[in-house]
């Protein structure tokens, strides 16, 4: 449940889902289906009124602010639709920010791999304002990856990108799962983007209604059509 009193809107109801380690899972659903809320609850950004959320061996439910901060810092990485980089820091500083905050030293070998994979080596000294949207989102991806979190949550990561830049980012996310065993959960409403995932979970009206393994853009689109329920407006 989400909100209370008169404004009570039930965003998620009796959702029970598992997202396997080392896999790329997409959450799909029409606007208002509760997909973003589900991800926020998983990531400890939002709290559930009933039930539990577990990330790795950490029970997220019931953690205080300090615990949640630690969880976000050590176990979770984020990629947002609005790149969300700090304008005062260079690309490199943005990438290393979570590690600096945690006071951890980056693993140099892994850092090099990440930088080369996102192809940003010659852009590291630039500030976000000097980078294109696709480059900024790749910086955001690198920032999420470099700390080697147990799971990366990506909220519409390609929402603000053109199709080519979006494809670059999605390829890069899929490779990090395939080659480096990273776990990624991505929320999207774009069937093409969902097709990059290993598994797609479909949400409607706060409930899981369907699931696809090894999806393609076509199968995703078909499933979506079948689910075609009237869209509701929810917070």
């Amino acid at each position, binding site marked *: 449940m989400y909100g209370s009193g008169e404004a009570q809107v039930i965003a998620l109801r009796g959702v029970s889902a598992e997202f396997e380690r080392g896999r790329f899972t997409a959450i799909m659903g029409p606007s208002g289906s509760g997909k973003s809320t589900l991800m926020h609850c998983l990531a400890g950004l939002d709290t559930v009124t009933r039930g539990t959320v577990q990330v790795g061996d950490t029970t997220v439910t019931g953690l205080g602010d300090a615990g949640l901060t630690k969880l976000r*810092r050590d176990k979770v990485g*984020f990629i947002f639709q609005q790149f*969300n980089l700090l*304008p*005062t*820091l260079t690309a490199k500083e943005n990438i290393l*920010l979570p590690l600096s905050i945690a006071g951890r030293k980056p693993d140099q070998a892994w850092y090099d791999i990440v930088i080369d994979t996102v192809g940003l080596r010659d852009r590291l000294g630039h500030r976000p304002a000097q980078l294109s949207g696709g480059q900024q989102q790749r910086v955001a991806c690198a920032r999420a990856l470099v700390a080697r979190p147990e799971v990366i949550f990506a909220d519409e990561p390609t929402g603000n990108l053109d199709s080519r830049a979006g494809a670059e980012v999605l390829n890069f996310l899929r490779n990090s799962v395939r080659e480096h065993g990273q776990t990624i959960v991505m929320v999207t409403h774009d069937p093409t983007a969902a097709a990059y995932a290993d598994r797609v979970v479909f949400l409607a009206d706060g409930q899981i209604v369907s699931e696809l393994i090894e999806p393609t853009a076509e199968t995703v689109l078909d499933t979506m059509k079948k689910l075609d329920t009237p869209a509701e407006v929810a917070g």
Partner: protein
Amino acid sequence: MFRATLKSLLARKVRLILSGMAVVLGVMFVSGAFVLTDTLGRTFDQIFAEAYEDVDVSVAAKPKLAVNEMEGEQVQAPFPAATLETVRAVPGVAEATGVVAADGALMIGSNGKVVTSFGPPQLGGNWLGESDLVQLREGREPRADDEIVINKGLATAGKVAVGDRVGVLTLGPREDFTIVGVFGYSGDRDSIGGANEVMFTTPAAQRLMLGEPDVFNNIVVTAASGVSDESLRDAVAAAVGDDYVARTGAQLSADAAAGLKEALSFFNRILLGFAAVALLVGTFLILNTFSIIVAQRTRELALLRAVGASGKQVIGSVVLEAIAIGLIASVLGLAAGIGVGALLAYLFSTVAGGMTLAGVGVPASAVIGAFGVGLVITILAALLPALRAARIPPIAAMQDVATPDRPLTKVTVAGALVTAAGATLLFLGLGGHAGGNTLATILGGVLFAFIGVALLTPLISKPVVAALGAVFSGWVPGKLGRLNSGRNPRRTAITAAALMVGIALVTGITVILDSAKSSISDLAQDTVKAELVISGVQSGPRPPSFDPSVLAEAKKIPGVRIADGQYGDMAMVGDQHLFVGAMTDPAAMRQVYSLEPTAGDIDRLAPGQTLVSSGTAQAQGLSIGSTVSVQLARGEAQTYTVTGIFEDSPLFAGVSMVLPTEAARDFTVPKPIQGFIQLDPGTPVADVQPRIEALLADSPEVSVANLDAFIEQQTGQLDSLLMMIRILLALAIVIAVLGIVNTLALSVLERTRELGLLRAIGLRRSQTMGMITVEAVVISVFGALLGVVVGAGLGAAVVEALRDEGINKLVLPWGQMGVFLGLAALIGVIAALVPAIRAARINVLGAIAHD
């Protein structure tokens, strides 16, 4: 458009409160000053009206010398008691009483110290019996010449009671009296306006307060029934002749109050000066707030333009907002000012005692001042951001980037020009090339310098902020904070500049006063050739004094070579009002002060002769042998022949002219106010000091100290002046702190999404607060650094200009300046508190979704 503005204003009320606060504080200062002086002014009117209620007509001799309230109490010349008979013979006079009432009756309290009044007169006079105004509370009237009655206020302050034997210092040396009565005034008052009163028998009062028998200095006349005060006054005036002044009771009280009101208006101007500083700082703050708000509203304003609003309408919208804030702030400031004025008036009356405070009034000047200042300042400060808002292109509504970095060239050039103008004005003013407007030119120069430096600040903020922030670069939140403070150079600069103004003024004044102190102290060490100094601390208009016989006795102590006492007073010399001195031992003066003659002989002074300073000689066109007329506080004008001219010595600068010892009898205080003791070489100071202390037993106003302690005591007065100035300037600093809070609060709002992101990737609450705090500390230390540098520069310029006045040593108070920087860091931490808490409380999810 009007509705859109109001809605937008209401939506931003929190951020506007802070900028409004700056105006409120400034307006409070202005209106508070007017309310205070108005209330006290009417209180004085009331006090004097009551004090002279029983007086229909008063007769006094024409004063020998006009003295204003800032210089001390007027000496009323004594006249023969026979005048009383002349007045009594005037038709229409029901009753005429001879009065002795003069300032300068100092009672020694039960603790052996003189009871002081800190300003109001210490009156000594003859007991005239009880009246509607004066009532004995205890005891009886004085019958013998060694009996006195005193007012209740004095009895309380001195902790003495009826039957006690107390010493009283008057024109003559200490004498002892028995208190036989204590009196109070109608309305259960213990004193009138805090004045201490000692009443003797008439002969004793004549001898002690006026210096000769059978004289009065005032006659109080009661009119027979049916005779108006004015006609009686004219009749009496005709009878006593031109040497006398006759005034009605109403005139008397108006004249008495007028003197005090003059002092009040001086005080008022000082308060308004500080209000001006506060408002200057407030202007910076409002300008900054509006700039930030316009930057944040770029999209909204662009949208207005896109849907057809004209540039003028956009300006109107911003200015309207300013008018609304200015109005509200003026009303609040006026209310707060009335409160503060009333509170200060109450405190004043409590400290002074014996005052029935007149009702708190709100003079028109307070209202006009409040609204004029509040509105004008706010609108002026908002004008620049409004013009900028009008230049926002409609396309900005569709673009993502809100505030592109504008180049700093224009503002830097403007800053350089304004700074140069300020420097030129300062040069003209300090160099004495400004004609008659020296003060205005200097103040204008300081103002221009502040504005100029504020305009230059964005340029220097980048490197300086980077250097300051380097301290924190090892710590991630610190580094982020430092980067944030360097993010918008204009915003940082103007916030820092607001703090700069207060700190620069404090630093500048500290530099000037410390330099003066150090120069005077060096000079005194070099030129005063005395091992011991007799002096006291002045706590009212009357300088402390002592019995001249002490010096004659001191001279007899083995090892004492010179014992010279100095008298001083204001006198009319020719047609100029000058400070003149006299010495108990003119022959020793040259040695004690290391004076050098420029003409004639300054080693001796016979009656009828005078020594003048070279400056006075030049100003008055005097040379050896010329004669000059001198009118002292008492007696008739005397003509003196110049027999010697001494070179102006900075330490002796106040004394324009030295008169023979005998002339001191006619000074307001006819007793020495300082004594200098020079010892034979090799005589231990410690041997002589206790013996002189013993001689001073009957002069409790003064004490004897060695030269170092004396210099310390004299220059110590500058310390209290400095303290007062600092307290008043603290307000300007408080406003600047509000500015920092405001800038940070707005920045936190602006960066909500960023803060959310940082929290999302693992920044702890405490780290978030640390980041905001570092930003605040960097800004405030930057401001303080600017202030210290600008202040030291201004101070050094003034000291340089005063070189000819004897301030020849520049002292930079490094320790103090360090303290200011430390304080600034603390200010930063305090200012960051609320914004940091707000930032730490940001809801992560809400912030990321924030648009």
